[in-house]
């Protein structure tokens, strides 16, 4: 269990008023690329608000994802803004990522079949879209989540053969309010 501070033996799940923070490493395996595109940074999941991914290396970019869409910014300047009204996969992406990290995947039950395998304290969840249209909308073929206490890693396989691997560490679950910077980032897309 990489750096988790929560001592609860059960899988952690987020409640209103709690914030999950941690570090992540993203390895992106893309067709036509000699090596994976690796990036790392910190994240914050604020229930009821959204998620903030602050990529620090090798290129600093902040991605704020809410149910309403996605905003990326570099040095405080917005580079990309995608709304859920235009891209239907965004609410699913948000539901998947936040659901996986928060330990609550019930929102995905209707569209994904979830298989769980237990190995001692660790469990593995496999999400597969139930229908072709869902796979197409969510832009994923499958999603594997490895959980010990917190989510340790997420592997996302995409339709064209690309895949993303997200590894999490130093996760801390605490009660508290989001910082004003976090609120500002998430508020931009509420």
């Amino acid at each position, binding site marked *: 269990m990489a750096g988790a501070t929560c001592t609860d033996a059960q899988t952690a799940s987020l409640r209103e008023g709690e914030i999950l923070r941690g570090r992540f490493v993203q390895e992106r395996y893309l067709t*036509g690329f000699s090596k994976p595109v690796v990036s790392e940074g910190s994240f914050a999941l604020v229930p009821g608000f959204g998620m903030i991914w602050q990529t620090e290396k090798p290129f600093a970019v902040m*991605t704020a994802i809410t149910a309403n869409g996605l905003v990326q910014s570099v040095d405080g300047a917005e580079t990309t803004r995608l*709304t859920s009204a235009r891209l239907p996969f965004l609410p699913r992406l948000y539901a998947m990522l936040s659901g996986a990290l928060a330990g609550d995947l019930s929102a995905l039950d209707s569209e994904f079949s979830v298989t769980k395998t237990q190995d001692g304290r660790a469990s593995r969840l496999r999400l597969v879209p139930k229908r072709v249209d869902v796979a*197409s909308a969510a832009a994923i073929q499958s999603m594997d989540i490895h959980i010990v206490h917190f989510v340790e890693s997420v592997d996302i396989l995409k339709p*064209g053969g690309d895949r993303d691997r997200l590894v999490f560490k130093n996760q801390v679950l605490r009660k508290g309010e989001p910082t004003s910077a976090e609120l500002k980032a998430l508020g931009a897309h509420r």
Partner: protein
Amino acid sequence: MRRFFALLWFCAVLGASLHVGVSVYRGLPLQTDILSLLPSEERDVVVQEAKDRVTQELMQRIVLLVSHEDPQRARLGAALLQDQLTSKKFLQPVSDVPSMERIRALGSAYFPYRTGLLSEDDREQLASGRADSIVTRALSQVYGVSGAVDGRLLARDPFLLFPAFLAALPLPVSKLKLIDGWLTVEEGGKTHVLMTGVLSGASMSLAFQQSFVAEVDQAVASMDDVSVLRLGAIFFAHASASSALRETASLTIISLACTVLLLLLVFRSLRPLILSLLAIGVGMVSALSLCLLWFGEIHVAAQLFGASLIGVAVDYALIYFGQAFGLVANGPSRLRRVFPGLFLGMLTTVIGYGTLALSPFPGLHQVALFSCVGLIAAFLTVVLWFPFLETYRHLSLLSVFVGLGTAIWKFWSLRAFGHARLLAYALILIVAVSGMSRLSVDDDIRHQQSLDAGLMAQQVSIMAIAGLSQSNQFFLVRGRTADEVLRLEERLAERMKAEINAGHLRNFVSIARFAPSIERQDENRTLVRTHLHERLHSYREQIGLESIIDEEARDYLTLDRILSAGALALVPKLILFERDDAAAHIVTLEGVSNVAPLRAIADDIPGISFVDPTADYSSLFSIYRQRALVLILVSACLMYPVLAWRYGFLGGMKVMLPPSVALGLTPACLALLGIPFTFFAAMALVLVLSMGVDYAVFCAEDNGRKDPFILFSVALAMGTALLSFGLLASSVIFAVKSFGLTMAIGLPLAYLLAPAAGNVRVVNRRKEGGV
């Protein structure tokens, strides 16, 4: 000879009745389209065509907002509504919201032409030398967390310009998200699902309105606690038609009942009533028959307005029977006494109604023919049949009415009332001056109709919840070729960006935003080559992209190539026409809050016109209000020669004077009551003039006898006219109310002033007793 003409007229009426009977049996060809009543006068036929297209497009659309606390139930409700309305063929099986498959097909159709396609923002960045920001965006997408990056795409579009172009396409946007194929918004603890549709029948057809709204009502009632808000022209049209029909029914019953009661009270006999109804019936049947022969159909509005003939056609019967109160002992003598007045009255009224044919409203042409034929037929019935059908020797009139009639005569003729008359003139002058100084006009089309308050509230709610802001204003772009039109649209788009930033509108949809002009596609390719190719090497090294695949089409994107994807249902409707020598497109607007800068853009760029149908209709009402006043002048000029022939040059003027004064005083009185003058009030003045001239003619035909029975007959005529027209003053529709109020004020004024024409003497008596 009289019997021969009476028989001839009987044959004609029989023929008309048979014709109408057969037509009714086969199904009366009723026209109910309200639009056909509106003026189609637009000097520019292309603008008119574009207006018709946009209006038709807006009128055929409906929006239902289905809400429930449970998202599944809200979506299920929307699905049930859509299934029910589509399976019963009320809605066309098309949707504004393209499916995921269609959006993907659209992306595939665009993809080969990608280097010619740039979003407006990217184009601006490249053109202004800020290519680095595009590289930064691409890096942020490659390294940032999101599902949009694809290795195959990066190899073909390394700077991710294509997704940016797709994201900037003006597809229908709002506050709504697409969930399970439904546009959805969550607000106030509820899930709201938007169901849009295109009607399969005409939204202005009364029959379609009724069955469609009944189906929606039934479907909504079957879904327990799901709330459904409605938006669409058909719902407003149905509500207006229902309230108009209810109002028409109640006004007709009140008008008829009061008229019958009045006649029974006055004549204390059924025969004048039955014969009056006969004259009206013959008038209606003849008018209907000729209208069907002439136009091939009849508009319900012409029928309703024409039904107001009840108030005028009955005048002839009343003037005729009014003589039974006097000393004239039999029918033929009574006819001889009133014939000149009836004939002149009929002639001037027909001239008055006939001038309606000069109005710009197509529906009024039918009203004009319907009314003129009806009036002539009623007149012929009175003069040809009545002397054979009534055998009164003498009827007695209550002494109070005799006294009143005599008093009014005396007021206008006796020297003793000279001061009182002066006082009346002064009063008229004061009312005229103070009224005219307060006169205001209202030509705004939105004020002339009454929209259902409940539906208005639902419209406001839907627009607030869903963030919809459809606008009926648009740009019309014209050029010699389709590509020239696209280039003009691109110039327009550059100007519109500033207006969007300034908050003057929210968005716009043009063909060029989906399929740029050839020139623009060339420019885009050059911009990408010039500003991004030099950065490609270092960018590829930075992210580790090994190779670039160049497989794009060498020719240009055209609209046809992307329409086949089926994701752009609304786009083809923006093409007004594309011919060998000319093309015209429509550019629709969303969320317009300030039209002045938009008009200015159109003024600056030749080939682009800004069209604002509501403002255009309002300015048309202004023009037509002025024309209606000219119509009154024309009407008076046409009447005067008839009067001058009968009463002499000066006498004719004296007969024209009382109705003219009533005509001038009526708008002044309206102004004193705080009611603005409208086109519909001006149209009512046309009728005040023709009826007022009637009253003055009947008084002039008295030829100095000061017969109180004539004045009583005219009072009866005025009373029945008030019951038909004046009651319209109680209408909830402002246009109708304005018409009714004008009549309710103008007719009594015309009546009170008419005896002033009693001093005129007949100079040409050849027509007297001419039957």
